[in-house]
């Protein structure tokens, strides 16, 4: 390695050492932006966004959301006898009744007439 090359290398190293803190900050910001984008894409595509009642517009219904911890369910282990069969029947009937007693997402809430955007009656 000749003297000229040595000088060139020293200059490059010097330039890197001068700016390395700024490069580090820049790279950190870029990586953060990338990770946030991935997280937001997953939030939107996974369906989590639809279950998130903390979003704006859901204030009125936020407090009415049920808590899933209230139901323990049927134990997956243990002897299967008449008592267990009766226990399952009782739990299932109760939960099935809750799930099927409401005709969800039905009705004419989105009808043209309800929204008053139907074609006007011809005279």
């Amino acid at each position, binding site marked *: 390695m000749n003297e000229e090359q040595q000088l060139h290398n020293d200059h490059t190293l010097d330039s890197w050492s001068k700016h390395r803190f700024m490069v580090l900050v820049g790279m950190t910001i870029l990586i953060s932006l990338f990770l946030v984008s991935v997280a937001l894409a997953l939030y939107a595509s996974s369906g989590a966004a639809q279950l998130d009642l903390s979003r704006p517009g859901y204030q009125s219904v936020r407090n009415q*959301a049920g808590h899933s911890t209230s139901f323990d369910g*049927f134990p997956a282990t243990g002897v299967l006898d008449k008592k267990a*069969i009766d226990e399952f029947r009782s739990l*299932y009937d109760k939960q099935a009744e809750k*799930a099927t007693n409401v005709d969800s997402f039905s009705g004419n809430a989105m009808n043209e007439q309800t929204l*008053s955007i139907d074609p006007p009656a011809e005279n």
Partner: protein
Amino acid sequence: MKRYIIFGLIFTTAIIAGVVWRTSVQAQDMPMTEAHIARIRANCVEAQTRLGQLHASDALLRVNRGQLYESISTKLMAPLNSRISLNHLDDVNLVTIAASYEGQLAYFRQSYQQYEEAMSRTLKLNCINQPVVFYDSVADTRAKRKKVHESTVTLHETIGDYKKEFEVFAKQFTGGDQ
């Protein structure tokens, strides 16, 4: 002579079918009247407010119904199937219905997501400037909401089917002594 009559009948049927098809296509493509557009423009802000309320109440319904549907699968069907298997018993029908229920639950989640995205797009529209786009978007959202409703009906049917199959299993298991 007979051949001419058959040919004539086919020809007439083809013409009538063509006319009927053309009329139906024209009816679908019929442009919106100015009066209709004016009506949409006049009422769309109120319609959007109503849709916003429906959006919020449907989100709550999705959370609460979703929890119930999930709990039936994860806290009742799966544990019972597992317990039957652990006790060296066998009921293929219960396992099949539970698997079918899981698939329907996935479809419910997916159809609700599509409906919610369509509803969000409808709510973001400037309906006064784009009344026709708004009208079409409402129709699209309505169709997607109908799909969600259909998916809940299917889930309810499967919940009933599982119960029936469970009773068959219970009868066999207890020897008809319930």
